[in-house]
Every structure is written in C-alpha cells, then in structure tokens.
C-alpha cells in the first residue's frame, strides 16, 4: 500500500476523518487542482500542519482544505493515511474563527510577478499555482528546440518606385495588352487590385 511521508512535526496529530471543513464555498477547487495538490504531496510529502479550531467536539479546518480533499482522494486511490500533524488555533467563537481564516488567506505585502519569478529562479515549478503568474514549465533545452520555427531573412535596402495606374474597367479592358507587356518587363513587379 502506498504511504504518505510526513515532513513536518507538531504536538498533536489527527485522523483526517475527524477534520471538518470550515470555509464552506469560500474557495472552490477543480479536479485538476486537487490532482496538483496530490502530486505535490507525493513529491514533497505532507509538509505543513493543518490549522484546526477545536470547538466543542468538532475539529474545524482553518487551513488545509485543499490538502484535506486531496488526502481523501488519495485514500480512495488506496493510500494508507496516517494521522496528520495539526496546530490548534484559538478562537472564542465562530465569528473569530472566520476572521482568523480570512487573515490566514490574506496577502499582507506586495509581491510582483517579477519578484515571484525571480524567487523561483532555478527551481522546478510544476504544481505551483500563483494567481496572475504564468510559469513556463519548460527547460532551456526545450525552448532552444523552438529555434527551428524561426525564419531567418536577409534584408536588402528597399529601393522601389511605385506607380499607381487607376482606370475604369472599360479602359482596363481596352489597354489590357499594353499593361500586360509593361508588367512583363524586367524589374517590374505588377500587382492588381479591383477596388
């Protein structure tokens, strides 16, 4: 049976069946996003404790909803799930627990896309999803392959004289042979438009 590596420690551990989601519909996740979390857990192990607000007999999840869904999916896939490290967060009531959950999801500080990409220099970025940041998950060698699509063109200084002949259709038909003869002359490029 596949096992999940626990890569963090805390004073308490809980079975995920005893953790209840608290955020309702605040954050939605697609199947693809859950799969990204699963891949991340497979690659790096379970790396951060759940944040839990213990109220009466409930263990409400304040942080880790995505991992909770991913772990439940992994259980279905046959993974052996141990108890997971949790940190207990204090809140006097549901209102304060919601405030703390929102603060946990808040972004205090300025991070630009440049900064994020700079921080990620030389690291592999699959399964990372930061809003607004489009990571190119290709190696330099793969991007060098794109060179085969480049068209190389040698330019010579443009030296042409343009003459516009504008005439009615009847005049054109009358002079068609003369125009054809001119267009066949060496050095002449002839383009015809009908408007």
């Amino acid at each position, binding site marked *: 049976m596949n096992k999940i590596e626990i890569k963090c420690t805390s004073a308490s551990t809980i079975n995920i069946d005893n953790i209840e989601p608290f955020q309702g519909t605040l954050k939605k996740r697609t199947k693809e996003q859950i799969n990204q979390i699963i891949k991340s857990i497979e690659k790096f192990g379970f790396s951060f404790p759940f944040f839990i607000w213990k109220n009466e007999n409930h263990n409400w999840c304040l942080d880790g909803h995505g991992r909770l869904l991913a772990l439940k999916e992994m259980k279905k896939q046959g993974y052996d799930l141990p108890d997971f490290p949790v940190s207990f967060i204090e809140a006097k009531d549901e209102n304060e627990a919601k405030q703390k959950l929102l603060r946990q999801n808040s972004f205090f500080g300025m991070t630009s896309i440049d900064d994020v*990409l700079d921080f990620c220099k030389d690291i592999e970025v*699959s399964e990372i999803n930061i809003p607004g940041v489009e990571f190119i998950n290709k190696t330099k060698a793969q991007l060098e392959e794109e060179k085969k699509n480049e068209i190389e063109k040698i330019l*010579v200084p*443009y030296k042409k004289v343009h003459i516009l002949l504008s005439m009615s259709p009847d005049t054109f038909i009358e002079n068609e042979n003369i125009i054809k003869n001119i267009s066949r002359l060496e050095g002449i490029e002839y383009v015809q*438009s*009908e408007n």
Partner: protein
Amino acid sequence: MSSQKTNNSFLVEKIALRLNNLPEKQKIKVLDLFHGNGCIWGNIKRLSEKIIDVSGIDIKEYASFSLTGDNMKVIQSISLEPYDIIDVDAYGCPYEQIKIISQKIKSEKIIFYTFIQSMMGSLPFDMFSDIGFSNEMVKKTPVLFSKNGHDKFLDWISLLGVKQVRFINPTGRKFYGCFVLCPRRNTK
C-alpha cells in the same frame, strides 16, 4: 503545466525567441516598452543563466512594472544607451516606437518586436510613405495595401540599415521577431 492565463498569447514562443537571441554578454539591460505584468522577461530571467536587468514601461499600472506611462513619450525623453535590448511587444505595428528608437540610438541594440496586423489591415500611413507609397495611393487601394503587412514592415526596417531579421509566425496575422538595429549614419 501549472499556469494562470494572462493576456500573453504565444508566451512560450515569445520567451523562446528572446532566450535564443540574447546577446553574448553575461549582464544584459532590457527596456521593455509593453511590460504588462512582466511575465515574458520574468520567465526569461528565471530560465537564463545571464544577469538580466529589466526596466518596464506600461500605460496600465501593474504590480510589477517600473514606470507607468505612454512608452512613446518615455522613449523620447530617456537615454536608450544603457540598454542592450529594447522590447517592443506591441499590439499592432511597432512603427512609431522603432522609428524613434532608430533616430535616438548611438550604439547597436537588439530589438524584439511583435507585429500584429488587425483584421481591417490598416498600417501606418507614414510607414507606407517611407517606402514610397503616397497617402493617395494607399487610400485609393486599401485592399492592395492590407496584404503582406509584415513584408512591408520588413521593407521599411531594411531602410533603417537592418540586414537580417529572425521571426516566427505562429498564426497568419501575428509575427514575433528580432533584429539588430545600428545607429543611423545620416539622419535627416
């Protein structure tokens, strides 16, 4: 690929073109005239071993930009000499920007450009004029002049002394390219 979509189409192709055509030197300074959210050069910095310093300009305020404003006004008012690369990832024809750059530079620059011809096909009259088509000719036969816009753009940049251009054409109307622009010997 884990990614959040931005307004950058053909991002991989644009990044590859730039990565594959960087100058030889190790430290590179870039002036990015349509910086947007900085995704293009941010990814290049991430993937390249070179030290790349990017100054970005965009009309719209982004978290990652360096300077908000009309790039035309900015390039007219600043010295372009510190930069090795000027990136003109425009939404149409980058004629105006490249014309100003060509008049100002005193040393060789690598220009990366995006050329997109709109469905209506209108290109700058001044560019046509530079390659010998009068306004009257263009107005009289707009269909004729809506064809091969990128070829006409290349005809025009040849007049700036550009000897070679490398480009990709992932869709009919979009061209992403680069060339070396040298300072003009005779300016009018």
